């Protein structure tokens, strides 16, 4: 099958990554890589070949169902061999809608994309990265491309063709946008988590740990007693079996004993370090690094060390 390999992302830098993936796929499928733009051409988006501008929808703030409908309309007309979409939250929503509209298969969150004349193939992490699944799907096909895997496309084509997909009405009207309340944390996406347990003696000591979290570009979490029982921190900070499950690159447990109910929520962290006065505390069994010591001495020491590096 020939035709084009389309790529799209609402995010400019992801768009440049997906365009690289499209270039790889296009080679195998002997097709042309084409970067999609919806509503307007963005200056920051580079294309290995040409750009295709879908005219009709608004020029900004396009809801995902509108983007999906616009791409579906254009693709019914122009019959691309494959459509690659950046696996952002927004992109995943477009891809799944598109797959249904076009009744074609969709590979999700894949990297190492390739194609031959008949199928689109890629790799996908499964079981928390313990195994790699090789997946493929007959062309025409859709894929969402793992963010952060591909380098951005370098060459910059400039040709722009246009396709008028007409007006697409959004299903959802945005009434207003509000910022998440201050203090709300998203522990699930934090790369570093500093987590406080009952080893912290009083609420007034928490700002010290908040500072540390900030200095480490991380977020502050806690064991359940600190949120549910003592009420020192909002519920959404509590990590564990009945709280949030997290997998940061670094989990620093300060004054946490490490009961199963807590470790069940953080055991998949890449690196776990713990500070506890009790050398037999179970947390040390779940840790890569441990300091037997008083957090009131260790935390200032860590902060000092961090400051001296800056």
């Amino acid at each position, binding site marked *: 099958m020939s035709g084009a390999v389309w790529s799209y992302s609402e995010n400019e830098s992801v768009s440049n990554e997906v365009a690289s993936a499209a270039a790889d796929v296009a080679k195998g499928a002997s097709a042309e890589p084409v970067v999609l733009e919806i509503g307007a051409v963005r200056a920051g988006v580079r294309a290995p070949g040409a750009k295709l501008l879908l005219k009709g929808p608004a020029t900004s703030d396009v809801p995902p169902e509108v983007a999906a409908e616009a791409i579906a309309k254009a693709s019914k007309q122009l019959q691309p061999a494959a459509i690659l979409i950046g696996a952002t939250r927004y992109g995943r929503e477009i891809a799944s809608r598109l797959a249904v509209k076009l009744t074609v298969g969709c590979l999700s969150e894949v990297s190492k994309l390739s194609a031959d004349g008949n199928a689109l193939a890629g790799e996908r992490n499964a079981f928390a990265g313990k195994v790699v699944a090789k997946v493929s799907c007959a062309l025409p096909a859709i894929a969402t491309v793992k963010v952060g895997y591909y380098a951005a496309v370098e060459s910059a084509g400039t040709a722009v063709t246009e396709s008028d997909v007409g007006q697409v009405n959004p299903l959802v009207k945005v009434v207003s946008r509000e910022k998440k309340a201050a203090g709300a944390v998203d522990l699930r996406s934090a790369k570093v988590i500093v987590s406080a347990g009952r080893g912290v003696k009083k609420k007034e000591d928490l700002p010290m740990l908040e500072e540390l979290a900030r200095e480490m570009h991380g977020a502050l979490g806690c064991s359940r007693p600190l949120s549910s029982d003592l009420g020192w921190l909002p519920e959404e900070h509590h990590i564990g079996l009945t709280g949030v*499950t997290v997998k940061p690159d670094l989990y620093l447990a300060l004054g946490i004993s490490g009961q199963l109910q807590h470790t069940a929520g953080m055991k998949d962290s890449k690196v776990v370090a713990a500070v506890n006065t009790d050398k037999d505390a179970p947390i040390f069994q779940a840790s890569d690094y441990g300091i037997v010591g008083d957090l009131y001495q260790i935390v200032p020491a860590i902060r000092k060390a961090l400051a001296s590096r800056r």
Partner: protein
Amino acid sequence: MAGLDVGYLAVYLLSLASVAVFGYAILWHARRTSTSIGPGRLLGLGEDEARRLASGDPVFLMHLSIAVGIGLSIANAILDPVMPYVPLLKDAFLVLSVPLIVGLVAAFVWRIQVYFRSKGVEREFKSTASFTSASTFLQLILMLAVALTASELALFWFPSLVIASGLVGVVRNSLVAVYYSRPSVNLVGNFDRPLSAVRTPFNLADVMSGKTDASAISIGAGKISDFDTSQRLTFDSCVEIGACEAACPATAAGRPLSPRVLVRKVSLLAREGGGSADPFTTVGEDELWSCTSCGACMSSCPVSVKHLDVIYDLRRGLVAKGKLDKEKSAMLENLAQNQNPYGFKNATRGDWARGLGVDTLATNPKAEYLYWVGCLSSFDQRAQRIARALSKILKQAGVSFAILGAEEFCVGDPARRLGEEGRYQELAYQNIEKLNSYGVKKIIATCPHCFNALKNEYPQFGGRYEVVHHTQLISDLIKAGRIRVPAEKIQKISVTLHDACYASRYNNVFDEPREILGASVSDVREMGRRKEKTFCCGAGGSNYWYKVPQQRSIAGIRTEEAQKTGAKAIATECPFCLSMFDDTTKVMNTGMDVRDVAEIVAECL
């Protein structure tokens, strides 16, 4: 005189007719629901009631007064014409009527208190006006029936008022025929059904082999017509007695659940909305997740309403719709990927036994007992101490035992109680296959949830074993003198025992842990709610894995109750209870110690 006779005859015939209508209504409901109400069943029910009578529970005595009072007044009305010829009979009736009248008056006063409590609960839940009035109506009917019966019994004493007494009886019999024939049938059908008998919506093996048509099974209730006749009988049988609500730990903790309100809502919806009505329009998700499956509602219900039959199917309905938050779906996911609900590598399941010289069945297939450790005692460092303690006891007593180690999978209880029947049966079949391949005959379990599933649920899927709870075995070992606590090793502490629902209420294991404590500590104190009337720790019914909105914690309520005994330690017989109280006693700064009975004994050896 003739006038009186005609009047008397008319009232007598009316009374006979009203009794006949009641009898017919019972037969009709029994036939419609295929419930057996033969003499054998009635005799069994009589025995069961006598057993409960012996327990001396005042609430039960009041309910018994109502039932016996109605029976006595009906007998009196029927036998009235022959009374003059059998003087002793009348005297016997008169004597019997006195305690019954006292019981009925007490019941009436009790009902007033129930009324105010129930309205308080409804206000809290913001129940609709139509619900509240339907509930009030049924409660008034009950109070009326009580008042009428008491008056009728009182009128026994005034022979000249026989007509008045007859008329009171007719009105009461009519009320009873309309409102209480269904609950009577439900009671006869269910009184001896054990708490552990969970309705099984399908059998996975039959579905896989094609014996059952997969498209024909309904998994969970999505609409009223998904409930079968027995379930409809059960929720329609609630007459607002309110005993369940008083016993329910979820209601006590201010969670959005009352078993009474739940079954009544479903019943009213079925009546008003018909088979296609969606129960989730009136029953909330948090309401269903609030239940700990402790069974207090069912065991306290005088007419044997089976609340959990309804709750489980509604939870299955939520699971089928994918209405699971992160904690619940993570638990199910962990069961699927790691065979334990915490997500630890199952290969490490047996690590707690390292260095203890405990065999696995793979190395010692001839062991007499399999010790089924369970997930919490396998992975939780605190609960592992139970497993180590039991191993020490068994070794000292010379009991031949082994564990499965990494070959043990979760028994499946958390999945089943959550409403994921398929995952439960998958685990059950996998476990049974292994157990049968080793030819396991006897099993010891320290976790009452494992114990209950292995003992009462696995037989249905082909796993038949002799299963004992560790407290049963330890108590036997002490009695047989195979382990001995020397007098100087008896611990000088005050301990109160928290009965685990799944050991005591579900399986009548409550004397054994007391015998063990009696032999190993100096001072055993009792809480008011104990044995089969125990109060939940809050972890059952999968509640261990998620949170629901509540005003206070169930475990906290129970901890306070334990504190009131003045005991310095709480003894448990379930790793989940242990974990809950370990947490609350610390958080509430009670200074109390929490230990499994096995740990207590092991310390004395």
